[in-house]
């Protein structure tokens, strides 16, 4: 098989690699995360200028026609640099819905400003009661006049507090997806920080009246689209997790070479060497599975769906393992806020749970 990158992919990989190495050190990341919006607005503008926010969209929509492989390249580097900017929320989740369902008018209104960085977006896929069953929603959409009235609650909406546009699944069995302005009357948002340094919001919709043009696609299109978008998101965070695991393995090995106890570097202890070999193995096995899963989905093979479950199971378990080991082998330093390792671990811990945890995906593979 040929795993080499084509020219476009190599250039993309180089450009993100350079950005992370030269312009996005840990201090920058922490400063961006600590701001009111939880990311760097200047950094986000850079992403727009470099074309990264246009990556997965069709050329006709002002995009670069990238597919799962391009997203994988980008997200792996984002993982390596522990990038906190809301690429997942804007481009993969909200953007993923819009590119699939939006009309030309809707794209002009919502998608263009997202690509250009003039608007922030969020997809409210989780509800208080549905845990990982995103298809099972209780938010209602009732036809009223020309439009709709929405009622319900949405949980832990990534980037929800920053969003100018919210994508809201509503309507149960005949699920619809609506694109609505976040300042519509009847919307209450509780915005908060998340443990990985980013931001989310709990959102209540109370008699939110929207026009007919808020509906994306047709009535009943929601469920399949939501599932496809979540699959994309799983591939994206899996790539990010691989980037993080590889970074943590490298950092731990480096630390073990420099940290001297009992008169020798701790990396000279066989008991610790074997554990770092296990970390490496977990990271590289995850990368291998990521390649398979991403290609299966790029090529839409029969295995595509199983590959989604498999890679999410893999990064949930391997990510937790590598994260915990990295902290343990760094000792107190791994516990320190001032040091990057603990923050990588926290992001892996979040990735382990979002879009279904290890058990949830393993159950689907076992059926």
């Amino acid at each position, binding site marked *: 098989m040929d795993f080499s990158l084509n020219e476009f992919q190599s250039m993309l990989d180089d450009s993100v690699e350079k950005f992370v190495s030269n312009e996005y050190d840990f201090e920058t990341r922490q400063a961006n995360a600590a701001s009111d919006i939880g990311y760097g607005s200047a950094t986000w503008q850079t992403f727009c200028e470099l074309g990264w926010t246009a990556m997965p969209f069709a050329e006709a929509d002002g995009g670069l026609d990238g597919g799962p492989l391009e997203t994988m390249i980008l997200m792996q580097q984002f993982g390596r640099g522990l990038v906190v900017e809301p690429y997942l929320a804007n481009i993969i989740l909200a953007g993923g819905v819009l590119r699939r369902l939006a009309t030309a008018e809707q794209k002009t209104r919502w998608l263009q400003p997202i690509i250009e960085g003039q608007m922030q977006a969020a997809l409210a896929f*989780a509800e*208080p*009661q*549905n*845990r*990982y069953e995103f298809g099972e929603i*209780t938010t209602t959409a009732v036809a009223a006049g020309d439009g709709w009235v929405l009622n319900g609650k949405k*949980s*832990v909406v990534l980037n929800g507090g920053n969003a100018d546009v919210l994508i809201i699944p509503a309507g149960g069995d005949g699920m619809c997806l609506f694109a609505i302005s976040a300042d519509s009357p009847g919307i209450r948002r*509780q915005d*908060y*920080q*998340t*443990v*990985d340094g980013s931001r*989310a919001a*709990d959102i209540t919709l109370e008699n939110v009246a929207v026009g007919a043009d808020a509906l994306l696609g047709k009535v009943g299109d929601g469920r399949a689209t939501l599932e496809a978008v979540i699959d994309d998101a799983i591939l994206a965070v899996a790539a990010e997790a691989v980037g993080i695991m590889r970074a943590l393995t490298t950092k731990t090995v480096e630390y073990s070479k420099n940290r*001297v*106890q*009992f*008169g020798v570097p*701790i990396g000279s202890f066989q*008991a*610790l060497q074997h554990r770092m070999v296990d970390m490496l193995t977990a990271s590289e096995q995850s990368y291998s599975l990521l390649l398979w899963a991403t290609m299966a989905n790029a090529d839409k093979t029969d295995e595509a769906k199983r590959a989604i479950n498999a890679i999410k199971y893999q990064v949930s378990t391997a990510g*937790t393992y590598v994260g*915990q080991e990295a*902290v*343990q082998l760094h*000792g*107190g330093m*791994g*516990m*320190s*806020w*001032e040091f990057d390792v*603990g*923050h990588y*671990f*926290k992001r892996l*811990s*979040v990735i382990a*749970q*979002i879009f279904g*945890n290890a*058990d949830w995906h*393993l*159950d689907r593979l076992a059926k």
Partner: protein
Amino acid sequence: MPIEPEDQINYQKALFDKGWAAYNWPVEYGGTGWSLVQKYIFQTEMANADMPIFIPFGVGMVGPIIYSFGSDEQKQRFLPDILESNVWWCQGYSEPGSGSDLASLKTRADRDGDAYVVNGSKIWTTLAQFADWIFCLVRTSSDVARRQEGISFLLIDMQTPGVSVKPIITIDGSHEVNEVYFENVRVPAENLIGEEGKGWTYGKVLLQHERTGTAGVAYTKYRLRKLRAQAQQSVRGAVPLSEDHNFMRKIAAVEVELKALEYTELRTLAAVSSGKAPGAESSILKFKGTELQQAVDALYMEAAGYYALPYVPEQYVLGFPEDDRIGEGVETDASPRYFNYRKASIYGGSNEIQKNIIAKHVLGL
């Protein structure tokens, strides 16, 4: 989680009024004189009632050192205030360059007339920001055959000129630990415990205490019961976790391991009660105890699902009105606790060090 020092002191004083502050001390110093089994029952009942922890550095740690190795003057001077929680103590052991290899510590105490002059720094010092006094392992001599022999046990008033405290924030965002600096700090020689150069021996006794104290079986059992109870409920209208077979199997598996550890602890107790010294079991207790503690924390995290994500430090301290609360029940502090307690396999001699001790002293390797 976060701690208000006044509340903590009032709580400890309330226990003192009950006669329970120094439940582990002999009667002559104001303790209960309880047998090991009575102490065990007390600890278990405290955990069952979800009582806050008693900060261990005074009553649990330096107190026993003082009444075991200190002079009569030191006993009279320090023990009553420890007993009544009038003085907050912290522990100065680890240093930036001396973690698992504690005996390599470099903080110096040089004799100058009737005082020691202390220079160096201690790290990961828990709650030093509230402490009035610190007990330290310091190096009084480098000219010794074994580096352990140059270490002494010194009590230092935190108000002494030259002592400064710098906070270290941990990954859960809390301020529990600190770095403590000593710059030409003059400490009266009368604050030396026991003999110069014997500090390591005294400190080791203390670590033994710390290691048995950290098994936390009773509290881990309590937390598991709480999790099981919440799993039966429908949180926010969700399907109860008890219907998730995978999750309940994990709870059951931890319960089995915990039961085993409880009986390991009881075996230790039985041995010590019949006059034998605690040995290898105490190291097993520490590393197994922290592993299970962390396993339960991970289950809380898992139970929280999406509500493991919010990081809302205010609500752990103040509590939010119901309408504004983010997450419910076990969810509200699941992830900060999970992140914070990754420390448990690191402090008090990392789990790797515990295994080294067992390999050496039990297996004879």
